[in-house]
């Protein structure tokens, strides 16, 4: 089974989606322009006009989870090929992946123990 036609089809769908959006924008533009009024284009901020831009330093409270996620996420890269051959290899595969997941689970337990699994 050749895969290239499938990728082309996916690419085609992407192009169709973009084209759909463009047609919609074109339709929208043909229906008229907004009136230019002062203060209309200011982003909402509980009733008053925002004076400063919103792009400032901001504490993201879940960064402990993010660090854990970056590491833990990579397990998926190894898990998919493993899952495909699991039935074929049987108990070997179970033990291999069991050891691997135990190692990763230690990391999760360590993070939990150190208080990484809460709002920082």
């Amino acid at each position: 089974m050749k895969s290239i036609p499938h990728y082309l089809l996916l690419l085609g769908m992407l192009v169709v989606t973009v084209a759909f959006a463009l047609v919609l924008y074109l339709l929208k533009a043909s229906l008229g322009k907004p009136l230019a009024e002062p203060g209309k284009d200011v982003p909402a901020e509980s009733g008053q006009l925002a004076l400063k831009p919103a792009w400032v330093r901001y504490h993201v409270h879940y960064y402990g989870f993010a660090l854990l996620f970056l590491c833990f996420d990579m397990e998926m890269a190894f898990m998919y090929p493993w899952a495909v051959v699991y039935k074929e290899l049987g108990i070997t595969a179970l033990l291999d992946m069991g050891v691997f997941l135990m190692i990763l689970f230690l990391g999760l337990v360590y993070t939990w123990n150190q208080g990484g699994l809460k709002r920082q």
Partner: protein
Amino acid sequence: MALTICLSIAAVLFGIGLYGVISQTNLVMIMMGVELMLAAAMLNLVAFWRLLHPHTYALQLFVLVVMTVMALEAAVGFALATQRFRSRGSVEVEEAADLKENA
């Protein structure tokens, strides 16, 4: 032909990544440069797998390992940056001269 294309593109990406690593002052931007260089390495590995040894799956596994290294580098780098920011209030490498002995 295909191999030449892939290797050339990887070489250019590697050059851009190295330029970024040396020219940026921000630790996170430096990590972006490193990621670009690792990505170039990955491209080389995939090209070698496909065009030279399509039945050697150790090469594909190598790509997985490089991808893992990318993620781990990012995680440890962010952790260092967080601690640095906590103690000094910035992640600029030019302000990190105090890490040097008797500076």
